[in-house]
């Protein structure tokens, strides 16, 4: 199980070495056995998985095309809706929520023959950088069990690293796919804003939320992104841009590709993480790429900008959780307004409350211009930095995180320190450009380090080609 790729499953099914149902049973059994070590799955859905796998076997037996993900065990972050299968956002607020519809990304994965085996743990409502804010307990990093897997999509990264799923879906608002991918030593992709429909993704910060894949190699991540991308009438922000066959375009030449290394990022990078990034840059040069220093001057303002915009949007999006239509309701409330306040006070955890409070504050009368409007202007400057950079370079490379996976509990009581760990990932999120983490070695006694690759809007193909060449060099 731990060694399967999309290609090995496709080949095995073709050669009749195994059936899709056998692969699904093995994946479910392996997940059941391994999960107590990491707490990465919140729920397994054997009924749904086996039905999907049986359908793949039926198609194959009938000589029909079974799809790009035929028989591939896939895990889905528990902020993405699955019809009839409990979806909690790792929150007490939605502890018993059974969605009445599927997210578009889930529909597309299953239409392509993918076998959804379970829902993965994450930070509550995807708010966190360590997976420690989950109502259902933290996830442990399968590479080092005393360490966090990163967040917020910690479970989706961990199951792929652990081998209890072949690929998974996560969501990224400020680094929630790339940072856990780097901490767990897997590939994680945040596509261009609008590339993948968010219909059925529980909204955190709508101008920043993305769905993207985790995989154990670049090729598998490209295949999954190709399946879930494209216009969706149910999400007005989804772009109509054509979806290239990303996996088929991986093998192009990268010689002569121009790559920028932002000086503002590297000045903060220290220790073995910085060493691995410098080695990766040398490797890119040896591959024939031209690497040059570039400047992204607004970078120093990115964290403040991000935490104003994302909390403002979150405070509005999470207003819907009021105990009326779905989710938790406080039992001892005499009036409607008391019911709202008590429900939200009891149903949300500490980090979610902190962000709702911050977002409400920055939007409130007298502070809107100083915080929210100012942050939107600085966001324009951060995006402009990338626009300028991409006039002279094809791609930007950078660290994903200033340090590898930290210990459970190490940063949990200091929100400022936790927010600072997102420094390298939030700029790409604010600009809405495609970015990914690809493994580039180990630091500090065997902890994975990720190299971040960022390209211009809708240039995923170029990003994958560079990542694939780097992975195989």
């Amino acid at each position, binding site marked *: 199980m731990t060694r399967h790729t999309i290609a090995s499953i496709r080949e095995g099914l073709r050669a009749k070495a195994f059936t899709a149902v056998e692969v699904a049973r093995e994946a479910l059994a392996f997940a059941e056995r391994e999960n107590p070590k990491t707490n990465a799955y919140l729920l397994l859905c054997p009924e749904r998985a086996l039905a999907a796998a049986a359908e793949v076997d039926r198609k194959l037996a009938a000589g029909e095309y079974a799809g790009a993900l035929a028989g591939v065990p896939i895990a889905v972050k528990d902020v993405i809706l699955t019809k009839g299968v409990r979806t909690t956002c790792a929150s007490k607020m939605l502890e018993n929520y059974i969605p009445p519809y599927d997210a578009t990304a889930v529909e597309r994965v299953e239409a392509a023959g993918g076998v959804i085996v379970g829902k993965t743990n994450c930070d509550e409502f995807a708010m966190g950088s360590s997976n420690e804010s989950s109502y259902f307990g933290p996830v442990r990093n399968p590479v080092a069990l005393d360490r966090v897997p990163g967040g917020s999509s910690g479970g989706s990264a961990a199951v792929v690293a652990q081998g209890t799923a072949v690929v998974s879906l996560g969501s990224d608002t400020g680094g929630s796919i790339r940072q856990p991918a780097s901490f767990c030593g897997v590939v994680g992709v945040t596509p261009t804003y*609008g590339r993948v429909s968010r219909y059925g993704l529980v909204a955190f910060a709508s101008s920043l939320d993305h769905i993207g894949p985790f995989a154990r190699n670049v090729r598998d991540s490209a295949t999954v992104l190709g399946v879930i991308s494209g216009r969706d009438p149910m999400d007005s922000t989804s772009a109509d841009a054509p979806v290239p066959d990303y996996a088929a375009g991986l093998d192009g030449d990268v010689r002569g590709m121009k790559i920028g290394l932002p000086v503002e990022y590297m000045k903060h990078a220290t220790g073995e993480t910085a060493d691995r990034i410098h080695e990766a840059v040398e490797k890119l040069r040896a591959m024939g790429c031209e690497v040059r220093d570039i400047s992204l001057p607004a970078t120093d303002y990115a964290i*403040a900008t991000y935490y104003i915009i994302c909390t403002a949007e979150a405070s509005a999006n999470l207003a819907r959780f009021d105990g009326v239509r*779905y989710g938790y309701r406080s039992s001892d409330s005499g009036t409607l307004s008391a019911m*709202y306040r008590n429900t939200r006070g009891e149903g949300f955890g500490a980090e979610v409350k902190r962000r709702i409070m911050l977002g409400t504050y920055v939007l409130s009368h007298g502070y809107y211009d100083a915080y929210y409007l100012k942050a939107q202007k600085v966001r324009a400057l951060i*995006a402009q930095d990338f626009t300028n950079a991409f006039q002279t370079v094809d791609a930007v490379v950078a660290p994903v995180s200033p340090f590898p996976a930290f210990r459970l509990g190490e940063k949990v009581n200091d929100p400022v320190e936790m927010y600072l760990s997102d420094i390298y990932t939030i700029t790409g999120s604010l600009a809405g450009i495609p970015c990914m983490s690809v493994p580039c070695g180990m630091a500090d006694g065997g902890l994975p380090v990720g190299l971040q690759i960022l390209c211009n809007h809708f240039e995923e193909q170029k990003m994958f080609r560079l990542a694939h060449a780097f992975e195989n060099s």
Partner: protein
Amino acid sequence: MRLTEKDVRYVAALANLNLSDEETGQMLHDLDGILAQMDALAEIDTEGVAPMLQVLFGGDDAANDTARLRADVERPTLDNEVALANAPMSGEGYFKVPKVIER
């Protein structure tokens, strides 16, 4: 300190969030620390910069425009029963809530 406990209670009321006394104290401390970081934004010159409200919003390239509306045609919605299935309390096809007005 940028904030007072009174500010925290005011914002909590705006957000419909019941906070205990202990949570209020902790929130005061946390928000104050976070807002101190955010004051850094005052340093950067944004004179004449248009605020960025959305990524790719209203792009010249129609295919990349991320503000497309779907055709205004009727389509099936969730059945009443399905829509109410997750409600903490419902009856007669409606969501039920505690009293709004005391008679």
